[in-house]
């Protein structure tokens, strides 16, 4: 059985805008699924459809096996954390957390008090029950919003960009915290974000959304390494994308003719000569090809079983920046193409103006539809 399932969900707004063009997903019980995409892609509408704030124009929504497509929000048993937390300003923290249980009517006052304490412990903020929301910091409000959503023991946790309003450091801390709590109680969770890094680091599975549809659904590594479309490749992380035409296919490898360069790439789906395609190369897949220090750490993504050849680009470094544990280089190839290369930080002395050659294994070059 599944925690949440959406079948053919479409949402057309009164103005005629088709915000969601038909999405299908089965979310396992206890699974953490992230809907990620640029603003306006329909991810929030999809989440609001699950919560019951929007009624789908077509399709159905099931939560915990029950159809709730047309049920009002208060009959759905979901717990939502809103972008700006929406802690009730006229109530104390205790009253906020107790609100859902009081609305349920199934709890005694003692049970509610105990549960509020339990939730405050869970989010590591014991003793703030008597304060009001405006007396808490952004990070604390975030935790209280989570505690409030979880207190009535909902069947699913819905998170609408809850980290967007926090500063970077707090955001990273909350990413870990949120995931810890989610795993601790094992609640089915749907998380909406436009932040691709959050999507990659937090989820069991992520669904990349674009223009009202799912582009790709899968575990983060899979979606990152094997994007199935140019959009996904571009949206998640940095991608070097080369448009071209397949000139030949041999032994599971395709030769792709991209005007200035021919790239050999591994074939995962059927392509044949003459197809228009795009080659996606992640910046960390390149290695410097001049036999110096940068070479030693290199292995192919699939563990060095590189049956195909390599493609070499020569050019000049135009820009370099340190990213902490890694270094990013921008190269301008001799044919005028811009390439981004990321290497592990080291004693690398290369810098802007240096001529270099980089190579990439065929197994690290992935084909996506043009």
């Amino acid at each position: 059985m599944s925690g949440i399932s959406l079948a053919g969900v479409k949402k057309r707004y009164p103005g005629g805008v088709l915000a969601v063009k038909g999405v299908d997903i089965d979310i396992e019980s206890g699974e953490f699924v992230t809907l990620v995409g640029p603003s306006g892609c329909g991810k929030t509408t999809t989440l609001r459809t699950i919560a019951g704030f929007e009624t789908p124009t077509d399709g159905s929504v099931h939560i915990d096996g029950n159809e709730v497509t047309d049920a009002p929000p208060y009959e759905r048993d979901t717990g939502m954390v809103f972008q700006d937390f929406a802690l009730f300003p006229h109530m104390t923290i205790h009253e906020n957390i107790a609100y859902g249980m009081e609305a349920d009517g199934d709890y005694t006052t003692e049970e509610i008090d105990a549960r509020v304490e339990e939730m405050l412990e869970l989010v590591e903020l014991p003793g703030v029950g008597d304060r009001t929301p405006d007396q808490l910091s952004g990070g604390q409000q975030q935790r209280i919003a989570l505690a409030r959503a979880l207190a009535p023991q909902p069947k699913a946790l819905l998170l609408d960009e809850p980290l967007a309003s926090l500063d970077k450091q707090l955001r990273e801390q909350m990413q870990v915290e949120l995931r810890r709590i989610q795993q601790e109680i094992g609640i089915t969770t749907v998380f909406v974000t436009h932040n691709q890094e959050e999507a990659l680091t937090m989820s069991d599975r992520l669904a990349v959304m674009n223009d009202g549809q799912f582009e790709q659904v899968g575990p983060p590594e899979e979606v990152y390494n094997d994007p199935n479309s140019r959009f996904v490749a571009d949206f998640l992380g940095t991608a070097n994308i080369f448009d071209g035409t397949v000139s030949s296919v041999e032994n599971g490898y395709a030769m792709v003719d991209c005007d200035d360069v021919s790239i050999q790439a591994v074939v995962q789906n059927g392509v044949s000569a003459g197809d228009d395609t795009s080659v996606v190369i992640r910046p960390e897949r390149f290695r410097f090809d001049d036999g110096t220090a940068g070479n030693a750490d290199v292995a192919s993504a699939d563990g060095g079983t590189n049956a195909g050849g390599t493609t070499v680009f020569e050019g000049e470094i135009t820009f370099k920046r340190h990213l902490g544990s890694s270094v990013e280089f921008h190269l301008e190839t001799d044919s005028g193409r811009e390439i981004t290369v990321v290497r592990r930080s080291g004693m690398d002395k290369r810098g802007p103006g240096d001529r270099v050659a980089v190579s990439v294994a065929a197994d690290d070059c992935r084909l996506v539809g043009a």
Partner: protein
Amino acid sequence: MGSDTDTSADTDTTPATEAAPELVADGGTATSSDAASGSDATDGGDSGRAGLKARAKWYALSYPLFWLVAVFFIPLCLLFVFSFWVNIPGGQYEFGFTFENYLRFVSVDFTSSWPFIEPGLYLSQMWLTIELALVTAIFSLLLGYPIAYYLARMDRPWLRSLLLITIISSLWVTYVIRAYAWQVILASGGVLSSIGVATGILSEPQSFYPGYWGLVVGMVYVFLPFMVLTLYSSIRNIDGELLEASKNLGAGSVKTFRRVTLPLSKNGITSGTALVFILALGSYVLPRLLGSSAERTLPVLIEQQIMSESNYPFAAAMSIGLILVVMVFLWALIRVTNVTAGSLGGSEEVATDGGSQQAGSTGTSPLAKVRGGFGNAASAIGLTAVAGQIGSAIDSVVTRVDANTRESVIWVTFRVYVAAAMAFIAVPLAIIIAVSFTPEQFLTFPPGGFSMQWYVEFFTSESWMVALVNSFAIAGAAALLSTTIGGGLAFALDRFDYKWSSIYGTFGVLPILVPPVIIGVAFLVFFLELGIAGSRTSIIVAHGIFYAPFPFILVSQGLDEIDRTYEEAAMNLGASSLRTLRTITYPLIRANVISGALFAFILSLNEYIIAWLLSLFLVNTIPIEIFNSLRYGYSPTIAAASVVFIALTVVVMTAIDRFSGGIWE
């Protein structure tokens, strides 16, 4: 979805309890039964919910519309019909169709000398009414702008609060008492005359009223606070950085004022002037109490036709004439300033204009919000140009002086001026307090001693006590009624989509745009038919509708400002629509609801002309009682009554404020 849901609910709830171990550990059975009942409710509710919503939409609207259309608008339209009926001298009238009433209204006199034709009594009095309203508006603007500017720009918050409270609280006092204060000041033997004699300027006591200029002073006194508060919120709204930028670019104080502040406060100037003009146009009490028979304005003439001549059709015709003046004025304002009728009348307007102005001001909040409803306009009707010319004249005089001296001279002049203007606002009421303790039988100033006898007389007089009880009972009931009407309409328009929502919104603000004397006449005619005229109920209903725009505007704004996410969060946590309304929506707009009710309460408490027309001499309120007593002189009992009434008003306001958790902050 029907049968689908049932089967899925039956088959899937059991696995659900197994699959979520943590969650179900202490409530497994509850969860499964919840799920089942939840889906049942959904099933039954689906079509029902849509149907309910459609029905709720009209239920919600029907209550306020019943009052605003059936009880208010239709009688108002009937007034129009009625103005064509035939009057039978002696207090009767009958159905018919005649232009006689209008012909009488617009009649002209022919004379033998040039210009051979002169407007008749009623036309010339109509022109006088308009002229008085214009003069009042212009003086209020010229006097009020410096006060508003000073208040908005001063940096001592406590003093600002004090001054604002003084200005606002003068609004809580009935026109009758304030007109009385000016009688005390202007009468022979009054304050001004006594001072004049004492200082030798006057050789013998002289009365400065009734008459044109006494009336103008009284009108400006009464309407100045509206102007100041309107201008204040508009000037306060100007970003201080703009002024700093102007000075940084080398402009002096005067130039900054002329080129930055003044143009940016145009909206305030327009709305303030329009507000004062409309209020002055419909004013009855002041022309009646401070004007001579030459200053009988249209409202006074209308009242006379009703109460003395019993010529209802002619009063109706004059009412239509007065309404036309208001409409022409509004139309001209809209044409000149490009505001839409919708925004003048209302609801969307409240959000933008009132909302932003509200942000900065503290003490004035409810008034600033209410004022927001009266309209946001683009350019003033020539007044800006006048003010601008005065500004540049000052500019050329002072540019010769060096900058520092100039600044300090300006500010000293300013302070002296503001102090004088504040005295103008505050002193009349102080004089009443002084008079109430006089031991003498008749009005003298300064009082020759101290005595409580007039308070004793007040509290032992049955008619004053009855009036006091009536005033508070009527105001309380009227406040409740207008809050349900205005609040209900605001809620319906906010929550549901109606095809004609802007028209419904206009109904919400319409009553306050109609001069009260006309409301009184329309209700009187209507209630006479129903047989309830001359009762407290009739006054309650009239006040409840007349003041409904205040709660309407305030509640609209409150609903508009609520972050809907709070309501979504509540529903997500399992609260039904009704519970959400009760525990989230209402608490978040409570301050707006209560200020709306308070506004209606205070205004009803102090209202004279509608109550007077509907009383048919059978119901007394404090303003009516004071007004009646004034016919027989200035007995200090009136002053004592005024002081008690004002004190009780303040007590009630403070009490409600306390109980409602301090909405004035």
